[in-house]
């Protein structure tokens, strides 16, 4: 939906960069100019200049390569000779450059470009002759002779230390293999034309010979003292290793007739896709795929990355206390906690609402919004108590995924619904969205201001502890606490009335919500005037020692994890909100009108009409969030450094790199990858379905 909107804008503007005309646009432009000017002035023009130069040259180079390749392949159809010649020059240059770069060629001057020049000229000339030969009879001698000549150039150019001492067994085996592969490929493709078969045999044999001769050979090696360890070969062997196979390949190429128009068109068409794709695929392969495979391989090796250790790394990781620890897992720890009973309370409310609503439709249980939400909340609290009792990085990871995904999605959906067509919608949304622009490091610093405790004899500068102390003062006051109690009691009364109205109008969700809120607020009010909540500033040293410690939100285990999750929720809610907001706007208005004509209330419309339309979007948001949360690392690194039981898998992975245990570190990375796999497969199946 949003893509079409973008496309419309693209078609409208047609690539012109819009000039700001409105006052707001001009102010924005001025701000941008000011920021850029400040950066240039402050960082220093020379440093920015160097960066820009890097960017410009990299972009220029890649654009030149891209345009060049396209122009080259444009000419494949109409000017085959030119195309073949340029390809030859490029191929020759690159081959000789690579050989010289690996110090395989004789030293003929200060520049490696000299060999590249020779190679390019030689191969280019050969391709020119071969592709422009008018008479088929001439192709054979040109092909064989030309390739042999290039082989000779190579053999003579090879550095003395790189002349191969041939191992004939390897040469023959590789040649045989090459021939077999070449012929086999043709046979599999069901070609029995003898000329084609001969070509493939020659090409395969030639390549096999090259690999066997050069790869299987021993070269001259000299130890530090200058004594010869192994003997190399001589020029003759180099010639045998190069001239013969190249002549064979040349013969194979010359046997083919020059490509006709159809074939040339095909070359042009087929190669085009790969010109467009290859830069991106190169980066993906080099930066993602190959490293991924290496990581998996590495995870089966020892710290130095040499010996294979089988599953030892996995065994060590999975059995370690830091990974999974169930020593606190005792029934009394769970049943004894307040959170457990709150969870049970919510589940019970959910069940009651469901059963009562079910009576209306004559079934045992009906999943109304109220019962669903209450039970969801109950199960979430239950998950928190279970995951807070079991410890270890895998449990923490799970906890992060459950909490952040659930709460960000719920909050994002909530804000999107609340903001929809409200006054100041855009401002509210962009303020909720703002943390998306802040780095995890910045967020860590920001939230330290909220969480950091100070000594008990000082005023608290962390917001949460300050609130806690404020509550303490309130509890110990004589008059104020009763005023607050009265206000709370009034609210509880109001909620009670709301609950009663829900019962009368048979809207049991409303009853459930109000009752739940009333119970929580009532508990709070009774605690406030009864036992007391919070702390007060205490100067008396003796008294300080008797008091329980001040809440330290990032250190008090295990719920410090939840306070860290709050930071990520703060960041990710904006993301969920933006996606939901656009999905809500895309719900067809006819549906909403039909619902309101049928007399549905706003909440009924939302739960019965809008929400079902949003379900696919919920899937998108949840999968995206799971992927993002699974690899959480920065927040923990910045806020606790992995201390106080806040380790997660991604954190342990980096920690092991720090220790130099590349094997174990790769094991953690591989585990992370395995954990993501289901989401990946789900995404792939979705995509296949979409096509």
């Amino acid at each position, binding site marked *: 939906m*949003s*893509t079409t909107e*973008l496309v419309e804008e693209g078609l409208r503007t047609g690539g012109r*960069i819009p000039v700001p005309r409105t006052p707001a646009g001009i102010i924005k432009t001025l701000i941008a100019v000011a920021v850029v000017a400040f950066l240039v002035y*402050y960082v220093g023009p020379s*440093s920015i200049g*160097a960066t820009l130069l*890097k*960017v410009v040259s990299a972009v220029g180079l*890649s654009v030149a390569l891209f345009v060049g390749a396209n122009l080259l392949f444009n000419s494949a159809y109409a000017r085959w000779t030119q195309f073949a010649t340029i390809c030859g020059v490029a191929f020759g240059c690159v081959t000789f450059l690579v050989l010289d770069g*690996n110090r395989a060629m004789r030293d003929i001057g200060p520049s490696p470009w000299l060999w590249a020049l020779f190679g390019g000229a030689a191969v280019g000339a050969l391709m020119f002759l071969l592709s422009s030969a008018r008479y088929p009879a001439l192709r054979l001698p040109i092909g064989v002779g030309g390739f042999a000549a290039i082989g000779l150039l190579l053999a003579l150019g090879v550095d003395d230390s790189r002349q191969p001492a041939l191992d004939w067994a*390897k040469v023959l085996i590789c040649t045989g293999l090459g021939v077999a592969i070449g012929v086999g490929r043709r046979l599999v493709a069901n070609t029995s034309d003898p000329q084609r078969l001969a070509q493939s045999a020659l090409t395969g044999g030639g390549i096999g010979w090259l*690999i*066997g001769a050069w790869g299987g050979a021993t070269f001259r090696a000299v130890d530090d003292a200058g004594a010869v360890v192994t003997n190399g070969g001589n020029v003759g062997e180099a010639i045998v290793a190069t001239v013969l196979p190249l002549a064979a390949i040349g013969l194979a190429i010359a046997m083919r007739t020059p490509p006709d128009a159809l074939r040339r068109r095909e070359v042009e068409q087929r190669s*085009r896709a790969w010109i467009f794709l290859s*830069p*991106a*695929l190169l980066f993906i392969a080099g*930066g*993602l*795929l190959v490293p991924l495979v290496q990581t998996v391989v590495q995870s089966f090796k020892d710290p130095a990355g040499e010996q294979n250790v089988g599953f030892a790394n996995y065994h060590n990781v999975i059995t370690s206390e830091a990974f999974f620890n169930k020593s606190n897992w005792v029934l009394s720890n769970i049943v004894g906690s307040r959170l457990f009973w709150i969870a049970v309370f919510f589940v019970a409310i959910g069940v009651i609402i469901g059963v009562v609503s079910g009576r209306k439709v004559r079934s045992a249980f009906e999943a109304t919004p109220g019962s669903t939400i209450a039970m969801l909340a109950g199960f979430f609290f239950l998950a928190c108590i279970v995951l807070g009792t079991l410890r270890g990085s895998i449990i923490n990871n799970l906890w992060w995924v459950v909490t952040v995904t659930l709460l960000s999605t719920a909050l994002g959906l*909530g804000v999107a619904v609340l903001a929809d067509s409200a*006054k100041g919608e855009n401002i509210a949304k962009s303020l909720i*969205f703002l*943390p*998306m*622009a*802040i780095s*995890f*490091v*910045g967020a*860590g*610093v*920001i939230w*330290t*201001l*909220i969480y950091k405790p100070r000594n008990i004899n*000082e005023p608290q*500068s962390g*917001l949460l502890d300050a609130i806690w102390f404020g509550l303490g003062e309130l509890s110990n006051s004589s008059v104020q606490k009763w005023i607050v109690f009265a206000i709370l009691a009034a609210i509880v009364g109001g909620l009670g009335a709301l609950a009663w*109205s829900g019962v009368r*109008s048979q809207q049991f969700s409303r009853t459930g919500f109000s009752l739940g809120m009333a119970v929580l607020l009532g508990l709070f009010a009774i605690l406030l005037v009864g036992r007391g909540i919070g702390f007060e500033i205490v100067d008396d040293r003796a008294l300080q020692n008797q008091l329980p410690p001040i809440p330290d939100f990032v250190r008090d285990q295990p719920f410090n994890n939840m306070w860290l999750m709050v930071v990520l929720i703060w960041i990710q*809610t904006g993301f969920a909100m933006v996606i939901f907001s656009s999905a809500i706007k895309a719900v067809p208005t006819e549906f909403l009108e039909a619902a309101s004509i049928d007399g549905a*209330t706003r909440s009924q419309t939302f739960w019965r009409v809008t929400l079902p339309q949003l379900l696919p*979007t919920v899937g*998108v948001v949840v999968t995206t969030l799971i*992927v993002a949360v699974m*690899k959480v690392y*920065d927040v923990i*690194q*910045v806020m606790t450094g992995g201390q106080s039981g806040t380790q997660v898998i991604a954190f342990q992975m*980096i920690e092991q790199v720090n220790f130099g245990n590349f094997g174990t*570190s790769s094991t953690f990375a591989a585990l*992370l990858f395995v954990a*993501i796999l289901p989401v*990946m497969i789900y*995404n792939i199946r979705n*995509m*296949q379905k*979409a096509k």
Partner: protein
Amino acid sequence: MSTTIVDPSRAGGRAYRFLRSIPSWVLWLLVVVWLTPTLGLLVNSFREKAVQQRQGWWNVLLGHMEGFTLANYRAVLADATGNVPTIRSGLASSLAIALPATIIPIGIAAFAAYAFAWIDFRGRQPLFIATVSLLAIPLQVALVPLLRLFNFGAHLTIPWLDKTITVFPNLGLAGTTNAVWLSHTAFGMPFAIFLLHNYISSLPRDLFEAARIDGADHFRIFWRLVLPLSVPVLAAFAIFQFLWTWNDYLVSNVLLRLVGQPDFQEFPTTLVIAGQASASFGASEHLLTAGAFVQSAIPLVVFFLLQRFFVRGLLAGSVKG
């Protein structure tokens, strides 16, 4: 069908109006909660060390306007003394990472997205799905091999023949910003291709057919037609990638800090601030706020100026449509 549902809350106009306004009150309450932490950072970055520690920042809202100073910013933005990374060198490095990592992938990904959308070749669909499925890969799995690649180059040993070929020479990239932006370019590629493909493939088919009839080939269509029409989505991607690379901590941490001889001059702002946060808590704690604000100011400016593109990019990149 007309069933009249009696809603008691509709009785009594004022109470009803009050109930109706509750959602917007909740919304603005959430907005305030969401804004509070950032506001705290902003306020504290302008206050003296002693005041920061003695009073919570919210006291300013209650009228305690004391201890305001620009000294934190002056200290943070000052020149380096000794071999410690500063915000100044950090900003230079962040730019040296974020600018190439933003601009270079744009073209590369646009080429690929065009090929996936409009060039017919064998294996197009599987290759596209394979590319995009890499979106979900946690980049942690690639970091250690990349660190080794930049440290030692890549060498391939052919089994049996026992010869080692250098696939990627050791160019001395380890510990430099070049290593970081190269990695970001690779990491950003799947998302870039996905986003741009979504856009380019929904350009109207008539455009392409008309161009084809006029004799334009793929190259010319891409250059003259697709690229200019794609400016909005290219901008959206650029904002994304800029925010992501500017704010990144993980990749820089591994590729710059975990090398043998880390060069502090190459550290981006995120590393500088995280280092200050963990190293010298107490002594320069009060400077962190100013540092974090300078670090966040640039993405915030980008965010506010170009939010429209950012939001649309987010939508085009996640919602299929």
